[in-house]
């Protein structure tokens, strides 16, 4: 019994089918608890007022935007090394979700930035890095869409994901070299609660957990539909061959 057994699409479909309702329930429960608690039952910040509440969406979305790319990187590596189709499909499935998370992080950041910094956008290293991440997602998704041969598309997008990771990281440091920023440093850490008061920390961590579960649920749904799509295509091809034979 090893983890690699679930590279078998049949086993993956069975397990993910069982897990999916639970993940959805967990995601919805954590999201509603974290967000409602955060939005309505936490005090306002003494400097930022009630605008601080956008943090319960902004930070988890930003976290998932990066983690989605890391997941794609891992799945791409698994595809290149072990050639498990489910892995390639999972990477493909995660990309639009990561893109959406990036857009949410950028949009909520802009909404938050206007009252706090007086501008929707500033060429701050963190903001700029996210914008760069956004274009990397776009390129990755576009390449998947453009190539007809499925295995070749998986190969090339995996290589692009690896190369893109290196360049995205390089761009991040290049951007820091290029400009100093407005954005505050990381105040969050899941294991220590140094920089942030208890009342804010707990709901924020719960909504982060909610975003993680939501991401897992969405990736599972997307991967399952990709697997089913492949099955359909295979069935259709088989159908046509049978027809021609008859």
């Amino acid at each position: 019994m090893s983890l690699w057994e679930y590279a078998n699409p049949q086993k993956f479909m069975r397990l993910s089918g069982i897990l999916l309702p639970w993940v959805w329930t967990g995601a919805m429960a954590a999201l509603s608890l974290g967000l409602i608690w955060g939005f309505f039952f936490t005090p306002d910040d003494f400097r930022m007022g009630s605008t601080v509440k956008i943090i319960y969406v902004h930070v988890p979305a930003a976290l998932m935007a990066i983690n989605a790319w890391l997941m794609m990187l891992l799945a791409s590596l698994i595809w290149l090394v072990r050639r498990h189709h489910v892995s390639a499909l999972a990477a493909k499935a995660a990309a639009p979700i990561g893109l959406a998370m990036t857009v949410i992080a950028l949009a909520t950041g802009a909404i938050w930035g206007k009252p706090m910094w007086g501008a929707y956008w500033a060429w701050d290293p963190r903001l700029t890095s996210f914008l760069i991440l956004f274009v990397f997602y776009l390129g990755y998704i576009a390449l998947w869409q453009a190539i007809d041969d499925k295995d070749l598309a998986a190969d090339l997008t995996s290589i692009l994901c690896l190369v893109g990771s290196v360049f995205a990281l390089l761009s991040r440091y290049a951007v820091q070299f290029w400009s100093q920023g407005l954005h505050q440093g990381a105040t969050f850490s899941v294991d220590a609660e140094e920089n942030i008061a208890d009342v804010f920390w707990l709901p924020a961590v719960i909504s982060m957990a909610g975003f993680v579960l939501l991401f897992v649920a969405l990736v599972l749904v997307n991967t399952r539909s990709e697997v089913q799509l492949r099955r359909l295509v295979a069935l259709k091809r088989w159908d046509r061959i049978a027809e021609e034979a008859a």
Partner: protein
Amino acid sequence: MKALFWRDMRLALRSGGGFGLGLAFYFMLALLFPFAVGSDPEVLRRVGPGVLWVGALLSTLLTLDRLFALDNEDGALDMLLTAPIPTEGLVLAKASAHWVTNGLPLCLLGPTLGLFFQIPLALSGWLLAALLIGTPALSMIGAFGASLTLSVKRGGLLLMLLVLPLYLPTLIFGAEVVRRASEGAAIGPALALLSGVSLAVWAVMPFVTASVLRASAK
């Protein structure tokens, strides 16, 4: 490899090879900009190096799609892939030929176009140096992008979306060299980082591009 390099050079220089089109585009871009932002020398001097860098990126992009595509269409690429030279060598030869026919003329034209932007001669020297160090990286990264879009029909626009994000570090460090030089700040770090990017790209990317070519040829 040497033969391949000279073959690519000859093909690029002949009519229909697109040689000079990238340059003409670069020239046009530099010509259009003062019309758009006004002829105030102060403004031109500030945006000039950046415009010339972005122009170099875009005109490099213009000639990339023919890097492998033409050889792929007439089957020459398959012959080259089965030829007794390493695929990495093929990539090196093609990227070098692309740089010599495209990047090098851009570098030489850059400081001349700097005159349009009132860039002083001393600064033009740094612009030339930064372009000379940075443009080889553009050709090599571009070869990677060109190999990715090889199996895509009419991949020109997709190429843009794939390659431009990868150009960001080169652009940032390259433009930073000129900006720091114009402000009298220390340019050592920017120059070192730009060279680092270029060297790393030339050391690693041939292997990556070769693996893409082999995967596409299967």
